[in-house]
């Protein structure tokens, strides 16, 4: 049966992509590895090229540190996205939830005067609630996740406008800033390491726990999962909650990054996060949304943009690069896959 499921990347039914019988042996591994590692390789290639072009700025540890930390929030929000994508649901509300959490922390801490820690807990609680409602509407009422989360993201945006009265809140407790961007390890703000740890956790859960495998199965075929005794509804529900919570972490990091939050905080992350999630699903574990793929996809895209900025390229060039890189990267891994399947290695 056809469900509106974002999983199972390669479009066309299995018969179309078809054409494979596995021939064991090293040649196959090689082809598979090439497919899985095309994006990382392209990434490294970009890095090397720009290092030669701009050795004095691009190839500096400080630049690396800047790239890694300034896009860590996008990594976190994209990670939030891939959890429901794995269980077969879209969550279009992650960016809005990140924004609302940021606003909640800032508002409670600054305007209401709560301690930082309590404000953060409150933001997480709000996000939990949103995830709970999203999941409930999807699982209990059986409403399309796309609609639920589109609606929810609109509502959340409204709430943000309401709470902030359309103003940016500044002056959040400096502890948060210290913990996010000012504190450094190896010269890289902590921020990056939060994203890294989250990547590792999600990689671990997806790859090395029965829970991750269950989520995958539930996302691909709910009936199979049900007949195998899995609590499909619970898995999907849990995924929606996890996505909201992780998005909230993203929002809290935004506050740490800028020590402020306003009515449009977060919203710009949605499309880049989708791009990165889907690009990431073509690499490392092709055909599955995966943590390292996400991580690499984000940094692949932003490395190029940063390099262009350093070269003084105009904004429109950045757009052209971004779109082209996205398509080319996927086309490349698709091409390798096809060739592999055809040649049977």
């Amino acid at each position, binding site marked *: 049966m056809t469900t509106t499921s974002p999983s199972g990347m390669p479009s066309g039914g299995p018969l179309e992509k078809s054409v494979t019988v596995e021939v064991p042996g090293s040649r196959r591994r090689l082809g598979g590895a090439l497919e899985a590692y095309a994006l990382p390789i392209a990434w490294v290639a970009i890095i090397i090229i720009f290092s030669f072009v701009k050795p004095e*700025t691009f190839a*500096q540890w*400080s*630049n690396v*540190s*800047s*790239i890694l*930390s*300034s*896009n860590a*929030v*996008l990594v976190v929000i994209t990670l939030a996205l891939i959890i429901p994508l794995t269980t077969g649901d879209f969550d279009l509300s992650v960016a809005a939830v990140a924004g609302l959490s940021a606003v909640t922390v800032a508002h409670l801490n600054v305007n209401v005067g709560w301690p930082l820690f309590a404000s953060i807990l409150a933001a997480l609680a709000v996000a939990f609630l949103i995830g709970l409602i999203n999941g409930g509407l999807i699982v209990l009422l059986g409403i399309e996740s796309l609609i639920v989360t589109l609606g929810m993201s609109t509502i959340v*945006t409204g709430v943000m*406008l309401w709470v*902030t*009265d*359309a*103003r*940016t809140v*500044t002056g959040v407790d400096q502890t948060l*800033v210290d913990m*996010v*961007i*000012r504190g450094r390890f190896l010269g890289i703000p902590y921020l990056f390491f939060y994203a890294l740890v989250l990547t590792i956790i999600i990689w671990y859960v997806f790859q090395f726990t029965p829970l991750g495998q269950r989520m995958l199965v539930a996302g691909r075929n709910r009936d199979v999962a049900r007949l195998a005794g899995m609590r499909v509804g619970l898995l999907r529900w849990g995924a929606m909650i996890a996505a909201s919570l992780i998005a909230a972490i993203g929002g809290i990091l*935004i506050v*740490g*990054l*800028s*020590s*402020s939050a*306003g*009515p*449009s*905080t977060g*919203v*710009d992350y949605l499309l880049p996060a989708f791009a990165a999630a889907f690009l990431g699903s073509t690499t490392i574990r092709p055909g599955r949304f995966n943590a390292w793929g996400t991580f690499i996809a984000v940094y692949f895209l932003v490395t190029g*943009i*940063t390099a262009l*900025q*350093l070269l*003084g*390229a*105009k*904004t*429109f060039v*950045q*757009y052209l690069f971004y779109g082209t890189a996205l398509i080319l990267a996927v086309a490349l891994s698709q091409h390798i896959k096809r060739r592999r399947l055809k040649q049977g290695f």
Partner: protein
Amino acid sequence: SSSGSSSESSAAPASSEAAASEAPASEAPADAAVSADVIANVEAAKALPAFTAPGAAFDITDVVGKKIFEIPSVPNPFLQSISDSMKQAAEAAGAIYTVCDNQAEVSQWVACMDQAVNSDQDIILLNGAPDPRALQPQIQAAKDAGIPVTVIHFHDDSNPAPPTCEGCENVTAVVTAPFNVAGKAAADWIIADSGGTANTLIVGGSDILPSPATIDTMTKEFDENCAGCEYTVINIPVADWNTKTQTEIQAALQANPDINYVYVLYDAMVAGAVPAVETLGRTDVKIGSYNGSPFALDFIAQGDTVAFNVGEDTPGIGYAAIDQAFRILTGNEVVQTRTPIRIWDDTNVAEAGTPAQPGAGYGDAYVAGYQSLWTTS
């Protein structure tokens, strides 16, 4: 004549509705309402701006070889034009000028700030509001690295100087913008044009820092100087400008058919205001706005729907900003700079060029004036 409804916020429709039902035909006589002050103010605003030096002349020899790093907030022609002037002036003075173009995303501004600090720039110019409030830690980092940060065209002239202004904690200097002056001028233009009988819809962007104060200035001007004027205020968040401006204005015009002026606080909303008026077939409604974007001036030249615009002299702003930067780089005191506005309507819009050019039509008083302040040894 009915008194102006003095709604402070967007909760206005209730009162404007009352006004609409109570005063259908009680227009004041056209000549009675407009004070001479108002007319003089309009005439002054329509003339070429005159330069006032912000401070004493100073030696800019030390600027040679200094690294100036600019971060524009969005890729738009207004900031582009400011940026071009700054670059031109800076390079003429021997500075090394870098622009960090971006897609208006906070993460990119952060990356640009990092780049500036990492590459040991001598000064950072935040051009047109890469929102300093969203860059607090980065500005702090710049300060820690001994790099001064200047915020350009974000705060209003009436705002306090750093560090008291919003987002200014570690900011070295600001180059403010005449948002409120422009609002007052716009109100005056409307009062004069209507002969004191305007019913104005003011459309603000509540999430833009200076917007509420500008609206206050306007409503105050109407209240004080135009007994026969009424107004309604609505707010549209920036994110909705492209999609909701038209319907919001339409609804406001429907709710109060007596409205005959629409003033949108920023040019970006003109593209929604025009079809709103067209859709309703309201040929009697005049639209005004602020920024002086070439396209908005073209609208004035091409038709009657868009009637006026409060424009800003982008080279003037650029030179004012770079003057401030030079002062900082050469160890001089920062100054309180004022940049000019000019009202454009059918009578003078041709001076901006056909089609209008960014920064054209403001004369060269500012450019020449600033250049005269910069001496070399």
